[in-house]
Every structure is written in C-alpha cells, then in structure tokens.
C-alpha cells in the first residue's frame, strides 16, 4: 500500500514493474501470455471489484492496486494414466472435492483466458470428460481460478486430468502413426539414410533440389509422383 510508481502509460504490468525497479524472480515466465507464471489480481480505486489478468498481457492503468499470485499451493492427484478408467468416476475419485462446488461462477470470472471454467467443472461432474477437455484446452494453469475459489477446487488440475484422459483413451488411435513407428523399427529406411549420411555436399544438394513439394492446398489424398523416397 502507498507505494506509487510512475511508468509510461502503454506498458504491461510486468514491464511496468521492471521499469519501476523490480527484478522479477517469481511471477515472470514466457512474457507472451501462455505459461501462466504471472497471474495477477488488481483493483481500481473506488471499486470493490477484484479484477484479474496476466501481468505480461495486461496494460497498466492509472492508480491500480496490484498483487501477483505467481504460485498457489494447489493439490495435485497422483495417477497412472495407462491404467485409469477413462470416465468421470475416475476424475471424481481423484478429486472428490468437485462435488463441493456451489456454482458461484467466481472461477469463470477469474480466468484471464476467458475460459468458462465453471462450465467445464460441471461437465466433469456430469462425467463428460471429453467436453471438459475441449472447454479447458486454452488453460495456461496460472491458478487464479483456484486462488479465488471459495469451495477449494483445483480446477486447472482437474482440467489437465480430463485432457490427458481424453487424449490418451478417448480419441481414435492413429493407425498410420503406428505403422510408421514399426516401419522404422524394422529398419526400412536404414539403407537410404546411411547413403545420405555418407554422401558429399554436392550429392546432397542434388537430392535436395530434386525433392517434390506437396502443394499447399493438397488434401490428404495427395500422393507424390516419385515413390522411391518413401
């Protein structure tokens, strides 16, 4: 309280703090709005409302009060993704507190990524892991939802559990990928790769220039003319 800093008007909260003499240790990461290290709560004078933002993305406003929440001691469940049942019951068993949610919607209002947090939490309650995964996909795990939650939920940990269950168990297998993995294992490409590895620059350039480029607008049915490089 009471410390007043003068900074150029167009700076982000993060740059403004540095300008004013802070060397950030906690509360600073990618500086590009994706790592979630710089969750910040602030308030405007004369307003009771607590606002939130990422310090690296939010422009300073005159007379704002700032507190960074760079870490929140949230619980994380331990699980073996290979053996969990891909169901809502699994999520509920690992995070039984989800039933304590009383729907105040503070989490959604606290999300700097504009995610409908309460909605994905209710999807989790209904056992819809897929929907929870999709709705939470943009989560940067800054923890502001958890910091503000009166029911002590760990929304962002629940969300990543749902996404991992969905990604591992509920999306279709990629047979072409499995085929590629086993083709490499059987050594199908070794001979041609060894040739490249021992080729001189002149020969490499020749092969490089001769590559056929897949057109931008080609769809999945596109096949190259030359098959010998496959």
């Amino acid at each position, binding site marked *: 309280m009471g410390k007043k800093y003068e900074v150029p008007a167009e700076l982000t909260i993060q740059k403004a703090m*540095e*300008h*004013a*003499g802070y*060397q*950030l*240790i*906690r509360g600073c*990461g*990618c*500086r*590009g*709005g*994706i*790592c979630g*290290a710089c969750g910040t709560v602030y308030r405007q004078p004369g307003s009771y409302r607590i606002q939130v933002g990422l310090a690296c993305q939010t*422009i300073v406003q005159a007379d704002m009060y700032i507190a960074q929440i*760079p870490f929140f001691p949230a619980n994380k469940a*331990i699980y073996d*993704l290979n053996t969990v049942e891909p169901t809502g019951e699994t999520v509920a068993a690992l995070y039984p507190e989800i039933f304590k949610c009383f729907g105040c919607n503070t989490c959604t209002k606290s999300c700097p*990524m504009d995610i409908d947090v309460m909605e994905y939490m209710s999807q989790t309650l209904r056992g819809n892991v897929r929907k929870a995964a999709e709705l939470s*996909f*943009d989560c940067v*795990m800054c923890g502001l939802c958890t910091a503000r939650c009166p029911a002590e939920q760990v929304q962002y940990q629940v969300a990543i559990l749902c996404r*991992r*269950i*969905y*990604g*591992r168990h509920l*999306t*279709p*297998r*990629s*047979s*072409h*990928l*499995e085929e*590629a993995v086993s083709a*490499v294992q059987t050594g199908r*490409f070794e001979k041609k*790769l060894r040739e*490249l*590895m*021992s080729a001189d620059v002149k020969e*490499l*350039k020749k*092969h*490089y*220039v001769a*590559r*056929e480029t*897949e057109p*931008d*607008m*080609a769809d*999945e049915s*596109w*096949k190259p003319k030359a098959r010998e*490089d*496959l």
Partner: protein
Amino acid sequence: MPYPPVLQELIKRVERTRPTRIQRKKAGQEFPAMSLEEREKILEKYHPDFIKGTKRPIRVGPSKGYSVSNELVSLLEAKSRVNPDGIDLEDVALTADVLIIGGGGAGNSAAILAAQNGVQVLLCTKLRNGDANTMMAEGGIQAATKLDKDSPYLHYLDIIGGGHFKNVPQLVHTLVTEAPDVIQWLLDLGCIFSKSLDGRLQTLHGGGTCRKRMHYAGDITGAEIMRTLRDEVRNNPDRIKVLEFSPAVELILDEEGGCAGAVLYNLETEEYLVVKAKAVIVATGGYGRLHIQDFMTTNHYGATADGLVIGYRAGLELCFLHTVQFHPTGAVFPEQVEGLLITEKFRGAGANVLNVEGEQFVYEKEPRDVESAAFIRECSTDVGKGVPTPTGKMGVWLDSPMIEALLGPGSVRKQFPGKHILFRRHGIDISKEPMLVYPSLHYQNGGLVYNANCETKIPGLFIAGEVGGGVHGENRLMGNSLLDVVCFGRIAGKSAAEYARQRPRLGRLSLHHVRQYHKELEDVGIKTDAVAPMLLPDYVSAESKKRQLTSRYLGTLR
C-alpha cells in the same frame, strides 16, 4: 491498441490485392521459391549473421579462437559466480543418481525416462518447472508419420538443406528415425493433437519442408506438450524431486574428471547448494534473452545461455554458434507484444507476406534464415518497401485473413485460438486484419558438442535440447525444436540413468576446472568483474537504478 488510421489506410492496399492472391493460391500458383544460389546471396547481404563487428573470437577455453556473437563472448570471458576456494564441497546439500538442470521439454522428458529406468532424479530449474521456451513453441512438431507420402529420408533431406548441409549426420539420423515414436509417446501421455475422426493426425507445412509433416495442437503445441510432461513428472514423486528457482551456476567434476554434480543457487534465499550426482544432464535451453545485436526476442525470460557457460567452463567445445536464428515473424505491433512469436503455422496455412504496397516479395515458406533476410531486405533502404510502425520501426504484413478464405470462415479462430485472443485484447481481429511482423531473435542454432546418445567428452555429463549443437546445422527448421527436446531429452534420460546405475563410487568433488579457467582468463590478460551465468536479464530502468543507492549488482542480479 487497434491499428491507427495510417495503418488502416495501408491495410486497404493489402485488401486490394487479396482476392487475386487467394485465387492464385487456390490454383497452386506460388510466388517463386529461391534457388540455393539465390538463398546464399540474400543471406550474405542481409542476414544479421553476416554483419561485420557483431562477432569476435573467444580468447579462452576449449573453443578458443572460435568467433561467436559479442554478447555470448562477454559471458564466456566472465568469471564464475562462486569462488572455487570459498565453497565447501564436502557440505553436500542434496544427492541424486541423475541431476537434471533445466525444467523445459528436454529436462522433463529426461526426468520421465530416467525415472522409468530405475534411478532417483533431481530436476532443478531456474524458474518454475515448465517455464521454458518449449511452453512457447506454437506451430508444431515434425515427424514423418504418413508413409504414403513421406519418410524419414525426406525429413532428413529437409533438415540438412535447411541447415546448409552442415548438420551432424548421426544426430539428424537419430532425430528423424525417433520422430514417429516421439509422437506416439506424447499421444500415450495424453497430449491432444489435432486429428481427423478416423484418427489421422492433421499435418501442415513449415518453412523448408517438402511434405506436410507438422503435427500440432491448435496453436499451442508446445504448451500442450509442456504441461503434459510436467504433469507426468509430478505423477512420479517417489522417483523425481523437483527444485524450482534454483539454477545451476557451476558443474562439479570429480578428481578423475567425470561430472559429479553441480552448485545450485537459490534465487530467493541467495544460498549456494552443493548437489552430488552420479550423472548430470544439462538441458538449460538457449540464449534469446541476450538480445544479440539488440534484437527483440521471442524467447522466454530465462533464456540466458547458462548451460553454455557452465558446460564450456567444464571443458565442452562449442559448435554452430556462429549462426543465430531470427524468426521471420515476430510481432512489431502493438508495442506491448513486440518481439512476440507469430507462429510459422500462419504461413503453413497459406498466409502471404506483403510489403507496404500490399505486394508479395518472397515465397512465404523459405527456410527461416532466408525468409528473415528477405524481410530485412524489403525494409532496408535498398528496397524501402517496409511498413513503418507508430514507434518508428519497420515491418511487413502477414496476411492472416487469407486463411479464412482458404480454409473456411472461422478457421483463424479455430486454428490459432491463442493468437486470436491475444490480439483481440489489443483491439485487433486477426481474422479480418493482417499482422505486422519483423524478424525476432528466436533460436540458438548451435551449442555444446554431444553425440547421438547425448554423451559428451566428460564422463557422466549429458546434453539435451537447445543447449546442444549440431543437429540443426546452421539453421533450424520449424517443428524440429519440439522434436529435438523430446527426442534427445528421452535419450539423455535413458543414457544418464544407465550410466548412473553402473558408475562405481564418485571421487572427491572438485571445482578445479573453475580455478583453471580463472587462471586462463588472467593469463590472456582479461581483467574483469563480470560474472556468468547471467541467470536473469536486467530490465530495471536507468532512472530506478539511479535511486537504488545502496544496491550492488553482481552481473545482472541485484
């Protein structure tokens, strides 16, 4: 801040040429790509690597005489943060079988694999675990997974062509053959990659690729991978201990010359801690925050070359650091996002690059170095067709609204949710308005020398990820860095675990190499107060510093 009226006027020129360009794109007519000779010529004339006076030879150490960026030489010719005679190496604070330095994609992949191989792991990192460039990688991860049109052979060719045919063949071989399994591993860990309903992974082009093999998770591929790896690391609390805000400031060797641990620095309590380990993996990432040649950077706050400095002092040689990667499309407007990465995936999805007249001047999918050089040429006084920004910088247009016409309405928002929301916060709708971009310091092409098992010439010391050099030659292609960190992270984890398991007792811990390095500095007449590693950049304003009357800065740290 939305586009001011001057820029809005200029955007009209982009809109005028757009319908024709969309038609041409749909018909498969591209702006002609450069030949290898043309590429060489434009690089020599316009790429920042070729500007005289920006590099100088290192005067000490195993790569003495090798010329690299001035900013890096200054760190390599600085002293240790610790006085080797002033620290008690018998006072061991922590022990581990495998110590991993760095909490990015490589470090976390290594931790998972080392733990799987039955050893105790300590992962230390400067910031939070996961706060790393991996988190910021947007566009995708390359792998030849569609054998009906692609192969590791073609992936190999693309990589070495992009790297000027100088890459280390064995490393490239490992990268391309491990790639499909890396994708499978990530999917098995629960990463959500964009897929069709039949399970076919969606793929796009990147600069310098001949086949669409860039797998992606929206435009936050790196974040999806990083948060998943981190979660998996935390699922192994019995095997993996994570220590945050504790960078390594020196490697510790034993009297036989093997690596035996590291000195960590607790950034908050300012204590130095001795860690003893049977194997050490350096996975500290790159050096974007050195702001080479004063360029803005796309990099993470912690990218300050720490691993290069401590590895070099311990005796590892450097390679391929004479080239620096500039990402062609760093944001230059609005000012708040300056330097920020605009993923290459926009160009992969078909967006043209345009000058102030709204004309194309380069094929949008040249390798990154060539593409960057072309932007710099267009904005130079030689051509003079850059778009001036309100802050006096120059940029070129990246025509994202084209993607709406090519892939259908709503596709910008769907394919690039991260960037869409970010620009929307500043009042710019990138599905309707183009972005203003200019090259931004992006990647450290080279680094410490290591082999395909991630071993180095120091027994017990392993390398993974951006801190190592050779796999990308003189220029990395898009999507090969995420692949690099996971591929070599996994290998390093396995190699280090195997090494730790069969290593007998460690000899006496020693920092003698630091003492010798200091002596070498003295011998060539370098008298300096500078210290390295840098650990954190210093962005405190000069005005504030003037008032910090009793503060003392050691290097960039207060």
